[in-house]
């Protein structure tokens, strides 16, 4: 495919507003719909130990009532035209996103502006959401996959801020007051470092004008600088923990180690190496060993999760409780083989071809392009990143992958979490 068809400097409009908001837009008139997405740095890194879950609770309150509209009228306006819009909290940022028929973009813009600038935090909705949230935590406690992941993060990130999920606990959610929510919003929400992406059936200038009209005059002198997180050393020794949940037919297993940050030079090598290890085809070498050859699991795959801070490189599998040790052994053997012999030229060639060939599919929808634009902005990748992407993929060598494998994978220092019967 011609690289020109991917988003690039000549068809992405990028404008920085005076108050610090960056607007990105790419037009697409193939479908009559539009996507609005973005984020601002008010995520759960700002939570205190006593009030874990506060960032998430705050974000979930933004559409429960604003100065102009109550909860039902907000959702009536959206749902009546088949539109959607919501806010959610992540570790570094709160995200927002929605879509609509392009004629209804002004409605999404209004939801964004009203939610960010004029939420009223009605008491009745605080209590309703609190109950929903605590019930959600009780359901999560019964989910072997969620709990394995939670325990894995606690082991891997033992004294790093990333050890928390951002969801909080029944106790911390129970202790959050209306004042906490109002205060968190006042202190942390502001236009600085906010990013808005608009993709769909609209001219870029028009989109930028609409964002400027609703958010151009927003100011918050109290807004803190973007939070950063430090690096951390790998585990000193292998650490394993089991989280018992009664009455479960399947145990979830998660094992892994620290991985690269998104902006590290060896990120692409780690990503391609991981693809060979636990993704390519039917879940790579690990899928081949644990699922195809041994029939131990319906899913067994690996993943590199790389962001602004230290990333996690992990393997995840769901197995019968009787097969947990066998699965851990098989996976450990694959890891040992991976750091001993690395990958073959043929494997690397196939995976490069997969990365380059699958780009058009990942960028076919408005949502896919909006995600790409936000990725470019978050990591300052350059507007031509997706056009240069094939060359970046091609540049990785087998030696690069062997080096990255030996740098990060230490089987004697694995974090191993299991949850189930």
């Amino acid at each position, binding site marked *: 495919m011609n690289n020109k068809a991917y988003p690039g400097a000549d068809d992405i409009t990028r404008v920085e507003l005076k108050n610090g908001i960056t607007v990105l837009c790419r037009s697409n008139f193939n479908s009559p719909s539009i996507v609005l997405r973005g984020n601002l740095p008010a995520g759960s890194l700002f939570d205190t130990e006593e009030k874990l879950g506060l960032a998430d609770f705050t974000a979930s309150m933004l559409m429960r009532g604003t100065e102009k509209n109550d909860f039902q009228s907000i959702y009536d306006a959206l*749902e009546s035209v088949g539109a959607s819009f919501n806010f959610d909290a992540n570790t570094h940022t709160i995200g927002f996103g929605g879509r609509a028929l392009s004629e209804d973009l002004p409605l999404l813009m209004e939801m964004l502006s009203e939610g960010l600038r004029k939420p009223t935090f009605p008491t009745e909705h605080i209590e309703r959401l609190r109950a929903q949230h605590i019930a959600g935590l009780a359901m999560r406690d019964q989910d072997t996959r969620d709990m394995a992941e939670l325990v894995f993060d606690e082991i891997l990130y033992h004294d790093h801020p990333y050890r928390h999920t951002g969801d909080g606990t029944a106790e911390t959610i129970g202790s959050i007051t209306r004042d906490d929510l109002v205060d968190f919003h006042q202190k942390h929400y502001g236009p600085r470092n906010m990013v808005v992406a608009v993709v769909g059936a609209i001219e870029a200038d028009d989109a930028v004008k609409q964002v400027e009209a609703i958010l151009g005059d927003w100011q918050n002198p109290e807004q803190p600088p973007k939070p950063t997180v430090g690096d951390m050393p790998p585990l000193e020794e292998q650490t394993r923990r089991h989280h018992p949940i009664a009455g479960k037919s399947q145990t979830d297993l998660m094992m892994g180690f620290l991985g690269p940050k998104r902006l590290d030079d060896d990120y692409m090598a780690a990503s391609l190496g991981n693809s060979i290890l636990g993704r390519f085809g039917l879940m790579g070498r690990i899928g081949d060993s644990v699922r195809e050859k041994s029939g131990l699991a319906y899913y067994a795959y690996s993943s590199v999760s790389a962001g602004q801070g230290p990333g996690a490189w992990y393997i995840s599998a769901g197995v019968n409780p009787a097969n947990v040790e066998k699965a851990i052994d098989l996976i450990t053997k694959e890891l040992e083989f991976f750091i001993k012999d690395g990958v073959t030229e043929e494997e690397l060639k196939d995976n490069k071809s997969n990365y380059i060939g699958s780009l058009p599919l990942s960028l076919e929808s408005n949502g896919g392009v909006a995600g790409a634009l936000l990725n470019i902005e978050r990591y300052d990748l350059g507007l031509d990143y997706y056009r240069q992407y094939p060359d970046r993929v091609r540049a990785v060598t087998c030696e690069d992958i062997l080096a990255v494998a030996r740098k990060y994978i230490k089987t004697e220092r694995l974090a191993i979490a299991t949850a189930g019967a």
Partner: protein
Amino acid sequence: MTQKFTKTTLTNGLTVLLKEIHSAPLISSWVWYRVGSRNEVPGKTGISHWVEHMQFKGTPKFPANVLDKAISREGGVWNAFTYLDFTTYYETMPADKIDLALQLESDRMQNSLFEPEEVASERTVVISEREGNENSPMFKLSEATQAAAFRIHPYHHKVIGDMADLKSMTRDDLYEHYKAYYAPNNAVMAIAGDFDTEKMLERIKELFGGIPAAPAPRQLSRPETEPSGELSLTVEGTGDTTYVQACYHFPAATDPDFFPLTVLDTLLAGASSLNMFGGGISNKTSRLYRALVESELTVGMSGGAQATIDPYLYSIVMVIHPEKTPAEALAALDAEIARVQDEKISEEEVTRAVKQAKALFAYGSESITNQGFWMGYTEMFADYEWFENYLDNLAAVTPEDVQRVAKKYFQKKARVVGTYLPVNEENINE
């Protein structure tokens, strides 16, 4: 953007639907077989789904492990789904690579090996898939309500099948099922994307035209009898959360009542999406959300129907508020049902449902894969015209229709109410 659509049938009975879409250099190819859990008898429940798994385990031309690598290498994605009425396989590829997918599908329509050792290792994979499902309280509950709703019809069991059958079925059972149902005259091909229709049709004829038709597969005829009273059941398990699922018997997708029921569903539980890829919208202004979640009887609520060949179910799931009881939530549900039966809805509510459906179609149309999905999916229980006329049929619904179907289908005597009750560990161990 012009979208050329063609539907044709080859001499061996293979139905082919082609839709040219030139918005991205992609093609999505789908092969649908008219076989699913609807075609399964006790002793062989889950066989259609297991056969689907075996379709990834190789032919002489494309051995296991070569297939998936070949598709991935070209930057494609592929997958398969087995459901009540169908089994389907798709590949979405860069447009210039689609021929590989076509070769593969033509090959595995007739040449899959089902080698005994592959059957053995896949048996434990499917069992593991079922064990993963069993971890979920809602799986346990819906399995019980579905079984209670259908005593006779094979919609009785879950698509994954019963554990007893997964342990006992043989390689020959699987192979026989494959040979009975995998034939061009029992299949539909649906291809959407960046191609030239004439050239594509030529290539399909080359690859699929020579596959012989098979005798029409035997169809089970076990229609469910009229329900004769409300059924209630309880499933006990771990956790702290109580779930209630209320299921009403619903008509087939081709029944004229399906469209008024779709409007009614939108009103009660929010707009349901026909998209497999492309998602839906929230349901916070729906009547049941307001009556249940906003009034703090439940912490969550969803509802929806399926488009099926035979009459299936409309299902409402309620996650009960920790301080409330299932009986309180059910009473509120009944009050809302009574309201749509007693009071005519407004014309505006129909218009709103149509606008919502229109938006959901626009989102779904962004994905070439979803466009391929739509064409084949509707052929399984109706035909592509059903899909093309969907919005018009919704718009033609009157408030009288909605009231009539509310009275006809939402009767207590025609429902099953299942409750998942959490019990603490000490009780379970007793």
